[in-house]
């Protein structure tokens, strides 16, 4: 008995050690980023690790050096609309696939999965060409508009969104819906009043992942957005580009701006952590 207790204590100590090691590995780089974000630019490349004084100034200057406020606003708009539209469209598609047998159902599923494996960089140029063709045909400017990049992200978010919602749909008993139909509801009403409340957690997860996809993308944003619509990921590149051009990278401001653009995402995630791990578990196990 004592040996069992001793063994348990031993494993607990080992676990604590493991957690501390992981914690340090995660937090030390982040702590360094925070430190640099508070270091005056003149001291970043210097000999000392710690700055002589804390430069809160970096957090004030970053709004002027790049168009951070407008970039963040664009990111929120683009990622938010992407998240909402992808979730709604995926909900319809997932519902039809989960509940009905029809010709082309399997093809559609395979298309979704295959899409996840296509390198995005491959779609960039032809997509650009197609937008230009449409642009010339209907003489409306597409490249540099919000909706162009939103449509693109929406489509790339679709496979995962459908997949997640499909696994939630599979858990809703068909009887519930039939009862609704029996009482004279239309399909759309069944979807609205029976299915929707039950897949709401799944929709939250879907929204968050679509939002993240749009927020984190650099590839499409750098080509499909213009100065007025650029996202924060593109905006931050301005700092680095100044270094590539031979100037000094304003590391302090860059780190302050990176943290500012990353922290909202972290907060969203931590708030919805329970849903997200559950949702992933659901989707993954189903797969």
């Amino acid at each position, binding site marked *: 008995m004592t040996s069992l207790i001793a063994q348990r204590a031993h494993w607990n100590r080992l676990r604590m050690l493991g957690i501390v090691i992981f914690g340090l590995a*995660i937090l030390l*780089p982040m702590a*360094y980023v925070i430190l640099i974000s508070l270091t005056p630019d003149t001291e970043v490349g210097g000999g000392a690790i710690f700055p002589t004084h804390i430069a809160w100034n970096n957090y004030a200057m970053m709004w002027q050096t790049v168009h951070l406020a407008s970039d963040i606003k664009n990111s929120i708009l683009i990622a938010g609309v992407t998240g909402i539209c992808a979730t709604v469209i995926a909900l319809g598609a997932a519902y039809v696939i989960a509940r009905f047998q029809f010709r082309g159902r399997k093809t559609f599923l395979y298309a979704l999965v295959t899409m996840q494996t296509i390198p995005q*960089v491959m779609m960039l140029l032809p997509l650009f060409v197609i937008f230009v063709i449409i642009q010339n045909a209907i003489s409306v400017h597409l490249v540099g508009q919000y909706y162009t990049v939103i449509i693109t992200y929406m489509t790339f978010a679709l496979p995962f969104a459908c997949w997640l919602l499909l696994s939630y749909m599979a858990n809703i008993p068909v009887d519930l819906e039939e009862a609704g139909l029996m009482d004279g509801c239309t399909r759309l009403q069944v979807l609205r009043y029976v299915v929707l409340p039950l897949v709401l957690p799944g929709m939250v997860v879907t929204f968050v992942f679509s939002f993240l996809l749009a927020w984190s993308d*650099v590839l499409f944003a750098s080509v499909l957005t213009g100065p007025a619509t650029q996202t924060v*990921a593109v905006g*931050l590149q301005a700092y680095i580009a100044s270094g590539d051009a031979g100037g000094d990278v304003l590391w302090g401001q860059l*780190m302050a701006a990176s943290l500012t653009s990353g922290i909202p995402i972290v907060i969203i995630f931590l708030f919805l952590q329970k849903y997200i791990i559950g949702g992933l578990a659901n989707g993954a196990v189903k797969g």
Partner: protein
Amino acid sequence: MNHSEAVPDETIDLQVIQSVHRRRRMAHKRNRVPLWMLIPAVVLLVIVVVAPFLVSIYTSFTKLDQYTIANWTAAPFVGLKNYLSALHQGNALGASALQSVWVSVAFSVLTTLIITPIGIIAALLVHHPFRGRRWVRALFLLPYVMPVFVNAITWRLLFMNGWGVIDRVLAFLHIASKNTFWLIGPNSFWAMTIADVWSSWPFIYLMVLAGLQNIPGDLYESATIDGASRVRSFFSITLPMLRPILALALLLSTLNHFNNFTLPFMMFGTPPSPQADVLPLNVYVTSFQTFNFGLGAAMSMLTLILMMIPAFFYIRMLRLGEATS
């Protein structure tokens, strides 16, 4: 339906007739597939994926560059020339496509191999309840939750030559010189790998955590009664039970790493050193900096063909029909 047929003729009254009607109407409703709900998804896929894909195939056989892009359908047809030059020389700025293939394969396989044990260990650490577990779980997600471009900038900072914290620590420990040059030259491959491992291991962690929840607890109980040690039950129970989800996680991780553009792009800028010139980055530079669109398209077709190997196994593993019926 059997129920309504079983009703004897003489007992048919108004109510039953109504009920039959209602059932008929319902059956009709049930069979009518609301395909219109699928239309938005299909239209999007066609415009954003299928059409560009076809354009890409066509482009890969033409000599499309910045001069012919304005009238792209008129670009001269060159047959397989782009594919041949993709394999031989690549673009003027960076590595050849063939070298990029090796960099990408090495990068995606290596990172997946490294993050797998890390992710499993992390999941095991927080699987059993203890005080503060919620916070530890949240902490473990942090690198994954941070947008990749932020992580890339972070590691660019850490790896800066001369004054970056990694060079300083290495110099302090007398392991390497202060001027190791992580971001250019041969070391850039390792810088990229380290940065990627740091930001992507929670993916395996999440998948394993999900898998652990599905292992029945009594398996461990009977193992303990039989006198199996914890290490033994890990190798005899946990690992075999995790196999399906691990296989899926490894495949997805390999695919994601192969397509990772953001991390090397933000860490090294363009063009990167040949040692870190992964295929997506090479395609990007070829297409948008040397404006050799035909060659870029050919290179992406080669990427796609290569990706079909893991993709094939991935699709097989999902067993599409069963998962959704």
